């Protein structure tokens, strides 16, 4: 028994040691998968080598629960986190993030213009330095529609003209917007309509028409898989996942740019991080136009700095959510709307899902 206690204690000690080491190095947390691999290749490793910093990486699935737990327990193990704007707004409001001053903390563009004016509107705030714009987008399998191909969001809801199952993310976000667009609401009016009781009912009514044909997905890797397996003919997906499937795996997928829902993603620093200075230095490097362009080239996510657009590989350019030709019919996801309404709409959505 003494021996066992000893092993136990030595294990405890081992944990204490690794814990101590972790706080002396920079940590970088993102979404895992090919996106994080691209970030590590274009930003994390170069910065680590140039500055002789040991950068530890971690992956998460979004949300602010983990950041909140770390800040509240004063046990901050993450420094830099790649967060989506709606989470940033909540985390920033709750005081979970360090402040970032674009004038000091971010690099100017080549012509010397300050970062603030180089960024797309809404892509920076006092907690976040934006990096890319991604979109949730409708896609289809070309092989399944040899004749006429779907062109609009309304076609996604048209089971007669374009038969087959659909895959949608198991979340009111996206589903409700598309339902309204398909029902004839212009994109600019979507959130105004959704703010009313009648608008929400209208959206659910539209969703009712396809409910029995929907396969709900939860992880980003599922939709390309569902399309490839023939389980569904059309799906909502993250644009880069489909881009990879088209470019690397040569899948017969096609984007339906109509109704693409654009989101903003950015870097934040967790409040109470022991490495704020190093984290800021990293963010300054990683949001330079060239760095953003490199990330865009390898992921097909749109860079959020205007001066980065021309630096992106032209072969990728036409796949970027921010490309000018894809803006007609596109919609910026309104993080403030979702911050206010997510609780209630999640509940309504769950009730709706549970009903036959």
């Amino acid at each position, binding site marked *: *028994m003494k021996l*066992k206690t000893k*092993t*136990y204690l030595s*294990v*405890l000690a081992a*944990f204490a040691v690794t*814990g101590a080491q972790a706080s002396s190095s920079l940590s970088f947390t993102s979404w*895992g998968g090919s996106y994080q691999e691209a970030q590590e290749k274009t930003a994390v490793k170069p910065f680590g080598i140039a500055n002789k910093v040991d950068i530890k990486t*971690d*992956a*998460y699935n979004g949300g602010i629960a*983990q950041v909140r*737990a770390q800040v*509240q*327990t004063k*046990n901050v*193990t993450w420094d830099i986190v790649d967060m989506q704007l709606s989470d940033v707004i909540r985390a920033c409001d709750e005081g979970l993030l360090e402040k970032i001053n674009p004038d000091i903390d971010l690099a100017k563009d080549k012509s010397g213009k300050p970062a603030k004016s180089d960024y797309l509107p809404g892509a920076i705030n006092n907690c976040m330095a934006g990096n890319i714009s991604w979109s949730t987008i409708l896609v289809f399998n070309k092989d399944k529609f040899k004749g006429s191909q779907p062109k609009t969001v309304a076609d996604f809801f048209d089971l007669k003209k374009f038969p087959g199952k659909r895959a949608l993310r198991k979340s009111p976000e996206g589903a409700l917007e598309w339902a309204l667009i398909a029902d004839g609401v212009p994109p600019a009016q979507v959130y105004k309509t959704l703010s009313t009781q009648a608008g929400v009912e209208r959206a659910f009514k539209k969703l009712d028409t396809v409910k029995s044909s929907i396969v709900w997905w*939860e*992880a*980003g*890797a*599922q939709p390309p*898989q569902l399309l490839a397996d023939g389980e569904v003919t059309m799906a909502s997906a993250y644009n880069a996942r489909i881009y990879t499937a088209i470019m690397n795996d040569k899948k017969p997928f096609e984007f339906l740019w109509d109704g693409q829902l654009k989101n903003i993603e950015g870097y934040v620093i967790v409040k109470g991080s022991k490495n704020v200075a190093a984290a800021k230095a990293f963010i300054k490097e990683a949001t330079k136009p060239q760095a953003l362009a490199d990330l865009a080239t390898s992921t097909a996510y749109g860079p959020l700095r205007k001066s980065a657009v021309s630096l992106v590989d032209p072969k990728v350019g036409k796949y970027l959510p921010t490309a000018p030709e894809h803006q007609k019919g596109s919609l910026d996801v309104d993080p403030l709307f979702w911050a206010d309404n997510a609780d209630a709409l999640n509940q309504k959505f769950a009730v709706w899902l549970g009903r036959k």
Partner: protein
Amino acid sequence: MNFPAYTNLWGKLAKYLHVIYSLLILVFLIIPIIVIIPLSFNSEPYFTYPMPGLSLKWYEAFFTSPVWISSLKNTLLVGVISTLIATVLGIMASLGLMHPRLQRLAWLKGVLMSPMIVPLIITAVGVYFAFSPIGLSNSLLGLILAHSALGVPFVIVTVTATLAGFNETLTRAGRILGASPLQCFFQVKLPLIAPGVISGALFAFATSFDEIVVAIFLTSADQRTVPRQMWSGIREQLSPTILAVATILIVMSTIMLITLELLRRRTERIRSGSL
């Protein structure tokens, strides 16, 4: 089959149906486990028969993936340490529980057994709320502590069961012959209740090895365990590598089952034998 004299034709038919039904259900129980083993050797990433060819590449994918290997290490580490804690604490408590006055206290045993009864999600959420503020979430230590608690009831059930069949006069004999209480325990009692201890420890280990709900709440990327990794793998994309992992787990459970069976026989021998 031999039938009693009073059995008529219908009775015989019913008997045969009973046998066939039971065998079919036993096949139903085992078939899902059998079906995925060959598929893990499929050379193509499909889940249908016949298979175009055989290959070990999914096993190679498992053993060469740093993510899977580190989760295997984490699982084993958590499993072994939590089993040790659960076994030591469980044996001690079982010895105490044999006291006649404590045996009447139903609530005490109820408390000690409660980790087995409470739904895992509730344990997981409770532990997550309680461990986060003291820095035990996102750490293997937190998972080890929680898994130890989950393993304890199994040790208590098996050890108290073997202790019930233990003849106390042997300890007294040991004491009279001059052994200290500790000596008595380690040299007389422990060897005799060893089968119960080992099977309890096996149950505790299997519980930790299989546990996923607490792991979902208490671990992040650095502390992934095999079930946790399987869970995200299944949700994202069911690849044949998962079937390879599943096959490895089936082999492990078979080994545990055989060990347990051997122990059971040994206990039976001891019970019916000289002691």
